[in-house]
């Protein structure tokens, strides 16, 4: 064949070979076209998210507390960043950035073939006015690009006074004590209602399609019928139970009452349904700064404060005399006669093992109400008589305290979480030693059991709504649980009367308002005169001094007397005004001030808060 006609043979071979190639092209372009079309698109077209605005957060009266606003992230296109880039000016506008790191990154990306056009993102939210100022000096920032995003805008100072409710800060350490000692360097991670209701608030981000070339340069949006832009869906709005006006007022009280800055928490709620009207934590922090990028100096300034990230409302503290209400409820429910009278003139100073001991030195020290005669339970509650409760332990330990203490604390919600809609709620620390010697302290709330302010609020709500446990909450649309724990009516009215008496003549009398019924109980937890590992008081002498003394067993009581006594002050009560009820828990943390007690500062604050509530109510009804 080949020998006969070279021309035809060669042509034949050429055509065969070219046909083979044509077949291969046909296979790629027609048969497998769809597959390669998709592959080619995926290489060029990149999906980019469009951020969705979060839902708005309103207060109970419909006032917008947290809104959205436009902010900007900045990006650097490495290829366009030139030597005249003014890093110093960048730091001036954007706080909290590390220029050395940025420089390194830019120069390394610049050398890479496929990354030199890829913008490097920096997640520092910048507000519009700053961006405008930077744009005027854009020649100092070659290669700087802004991308707009949504960020939160806080009205009525809620970024400071409501920061723990809106955005809880997760703390590294488990216990609050450690958190105080260690400087906290982390910044908000979820938390608060923003985190709890994130699924409602967040919305669905949209998608857009942009064309990118091999070196990562954005060539604008893709226009065609293969992919369509998906618009973002904004999140649902949330209405809180917070009354922002009360919140602001109470925060101010915390900051300036009696010309002092107080630490602690104040919670105001509606006892009937558990709605929290105000929830103040002090010291607080500024969420906005946290979101927009906080500078190192501002952060260290924050760390100078006493644990500003700690959400005190849901962390356990020594309860003080507040717990006497719980003890009384238990006593009455378990058959203790409320009219039983004990002598308070016995000058018991303390207990040793399981019996009460008389002061050996004959030094006068009775209950802090200075009773010289016998008292009943009602008076013991209203005037907060420690000796009376010691006596109840002394005579009823086996019958009532030992079998029932824990179960009643559990019934009243002290052994479990309240399920408030905040993350990281801590459980109360109910020491499980039920020996008589422990029970002396437990019955009056000193030394042993710790409860969280929100649990105390729950207990007050229980009394205020005649024996129903309600779930404290912030979301107005939440179906909060409400269940009876089966208290006798007589018990409730007894306790209510005793608390009323406390306001009229007893320890809480400074919170009294004419023509209004207020029922309350105060408490003062003594933390000791020096700081050791377990109790957290702060002496004027340094820790080491007292620890050394303590080790050698030579702590001199006399020497201690001159040192300031550190105390937590509590106030827990509720006000009835017409059909309306409002419950209040004040917890003031650690101060050695003379006025730091349930009966003084806490009660005075309570009066101011109740008055404000009444004024607001009347003003609004008009």
């Amino acid at each position, binding site marked *: 064949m080949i020998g006969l006609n070279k021309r035809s043979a060669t042509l034949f071979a050429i055509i065969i070979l070219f046909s083979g190639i044509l077949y291969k*092209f046909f296979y790629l372009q*027609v048969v497998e076209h769809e597959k390669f079309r998709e592959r080619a698109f995926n290489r060029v077209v990149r999906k980019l998210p469009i951020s969705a605005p979060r839902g708005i957060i309103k207060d109970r009266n419909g006032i917008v507390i947290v809104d959205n606003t436009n902010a900007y992230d900045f990006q650097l296109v490495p290829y366009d960043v030139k030597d005249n880039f003014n890093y110093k000016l960048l730091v001036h506008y954007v706080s909290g950035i590390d220029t050395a790191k940025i420089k390194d990154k830019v120069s390394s990306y610049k050398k890479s073939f496929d990354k030199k056009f890829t913008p490097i993102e920096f997640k520092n939210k910048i507000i519009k006015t700053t961006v405008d100022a930077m744009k005027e000096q854009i020649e100092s920032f070659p290669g700087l690009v802004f991308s707009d995003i949504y960020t939160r805008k806080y009205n009525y100072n809620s970024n400071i006074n409501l920061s723990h409710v809106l955005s809880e800060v997760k703390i590294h350490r488990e216990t609050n004590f450690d958190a105080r000692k260690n400087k906290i360097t982390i910044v908000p991670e979820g938390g608060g209602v923003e985190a709890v209701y994130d699924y409602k608030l967040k919305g669905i981000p949209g998608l857009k399609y942009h064309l990118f070339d091999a070196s990562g340069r954005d060539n604008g949006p893709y226009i065609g019928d293969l992919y369509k832009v998906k618009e973002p869906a904004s999140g649902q709005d949330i209405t809180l139970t917070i009354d922002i006006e009360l919140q602001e007022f109470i925060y101010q009280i915390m900051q300036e009452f009696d010309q002092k800055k107080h630490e602690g928490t104040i919670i105001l709620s509606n006892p009937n349904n558990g709605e929290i009207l105000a929830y103040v934590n002090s010291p607080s922090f500024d969420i906005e700064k946290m979101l927009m990028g906080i500078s190192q100096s501002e952060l260290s300034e924050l760390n100078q404060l006493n644990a500003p990230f700690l959400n005190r409302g849901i962390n356990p503290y020594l309860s003080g005399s507040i717990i006497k209400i719980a003890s009384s409820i238990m006593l009455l429910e378990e058959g203790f006669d409320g009219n039983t009278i004990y002598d308070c003139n016995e000058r018991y100073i303390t207990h040793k093992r399981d019996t009460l001991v008389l002061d050996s030195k004959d030094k006068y020290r009775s209950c802090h109400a200075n009773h010289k005669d016998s008292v009943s339970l009602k008076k013991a509650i209203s005037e907060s008589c420690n000796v009376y409760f010691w006596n109840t332990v002394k005579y009823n330990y086996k019958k009532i305290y030992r079998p029932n203490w824990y179960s009643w604390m559990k019934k009243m919600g002290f052994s479990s979480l309240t399920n408030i809609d905040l993350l990281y709620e801590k459980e109360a620390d109910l020491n499980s030693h039920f020996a008589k010697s422990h029970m002396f302290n437990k019955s009056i709330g000193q030394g042993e059991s710790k409860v969280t302010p929100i649990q105390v609020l729950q207990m007050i709500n229980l009394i205020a709504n005649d024996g129903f446990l309600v779930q404290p909450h912030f979301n107005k649309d939440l179906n909060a649980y409400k269940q009876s724990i089966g208290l006798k009516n007589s018990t409730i009215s007894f306790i209510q009367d005793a608390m009323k008496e406390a306001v009229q003549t007893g320890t809480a009398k400074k919170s009294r308002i004419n023509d209004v019924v207020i029922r309350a109980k105060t408490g003062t937890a003594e933390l000791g005169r020096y700081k050791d590992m377990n109790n957290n008081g702060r002496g004027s002498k340094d820790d080491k001094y007292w620890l050394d003394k303590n080790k050698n067993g030579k702590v001199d009581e006399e020497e201690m007397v001159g040192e300031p006594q550190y105390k937590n002050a509590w106030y827990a009560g509720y006000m009835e005004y017409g059909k309306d009820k409002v419950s209040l828990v004040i917890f003031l943390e650690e101060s050695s001030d003379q006025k730091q007690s349930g009966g003084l500062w806490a009660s005075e604050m309570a009066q101011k808060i109740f008055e404000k509530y009444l004024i607001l109510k009347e003003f609004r009804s008009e």
Partner: protein
Amino acid sequence: MSELIKKIIDFDYRPKIKPSLVIPIIVLVIANLVLLKYSNIEKSFLFYDQIQWILIGFILMVVFSYVRIDFIFQNSYKAYGVLLFLLILTLFFGSVINNSQRWLSLGFMFQPSEIGKLLFVFFMAKFLSTAPKGRNDFIVILITLIPALIVSFLILRQPDLGTSVVYLFIIFPMLIWSGVKVLNVLIFISPLISFLMAFLYEFMKSDLIALNESLFFILFSIWILFIGYTLFKRYGGHISIYYIALIISVNLIITMLTKFFMNKIDGTYWFERIVAYLDPLKYKNDFAYQINSSYDAIGSGGFWGKGLGNGMLTEFKMMPIYESDFIVAALAEQFGFFGIFILIVTLCYFFYWLITYLDKCLNRYEQLLIVGFASIWFFHFFINLCIVSGIFPVTGLPFPFLSYGGTHFLTNCIMLAIVNKIISLHISN
């Protein structure tokens, strides 16, 4: 002096153009210009560069039309000397671009291996046309291979595998047209084919690629049987059975070297290229990036293409060097299968007339010149298309007249001028 010029230049020559040869080339050049201008706006400056090359090429074509074929014939052996000189010069003084030393810097970048194809064909045509007839085919093949191997070794050192393979391959069509029997050529290169097959088999065993190895085993058996059968059929009663056995055993023994060879290249960039060629999907982000880009561009083009200037992959630089070696992919993306079909029809038309004229050519030297040039073109067209469509592994080989490129384009112009001159001068329709 004027004597010398008269020796070189034929002033009596009246240029004639064979439209059937030149029109397909003009089509390719226009396609080249259009693709350069519109594929990627950022690279459209190449369009103006290419216009300069085309003008220079045109001038060269006119000039070389006047060169006497006799002069070329007389100096053909010297041409080989010049070629060797240039290649050795490049080996020592060449400029290094992209890790390969292929260019001589003479004010402009000049690639000796491109113009060398021309010189090599001059030499080979004279060598084969003057060789006495009646010699043993195998001896002719062996003698021809020596100069070709020297040149392709020098080019391989640059390194430039594609071009060095072209040097080796163009001698076979020339051998066949000079009278060597096809079967003898086939038998001569059969160990190479066996080696390649066994080499593929090594890759399959090593799990580097996902292909069915038994399939290749069967193919190999068929190949060996085919050699044996054709030998037997051809030489039937005249050839000893031992001769057949020898050839088959050479084929088999050579396959045993593959393991050694594979260990030799393991870890080098050859290895990566081969693996990428055999299983492009698996290595699509590293070694096989280029071929996958090419696949995507071609495949996404579809039947009618995306239209001029809408080639996404070329526009967004997803396909490196689309303007030279992979310009067919750019064409396929923008004009689709239809464009490729037109391209191949154009090529077939070109070769049809070239071979038709070739067959009528009576001068052995001139005929072999055309055969040499035609095979250079054919191998460039064919291998480039194979590379772009993933049939062959990726080596740098431009597409004549369609790819952007300087020396390469000029060489092709000179070749076209000589072919046109021979055909228009000596062959009348």
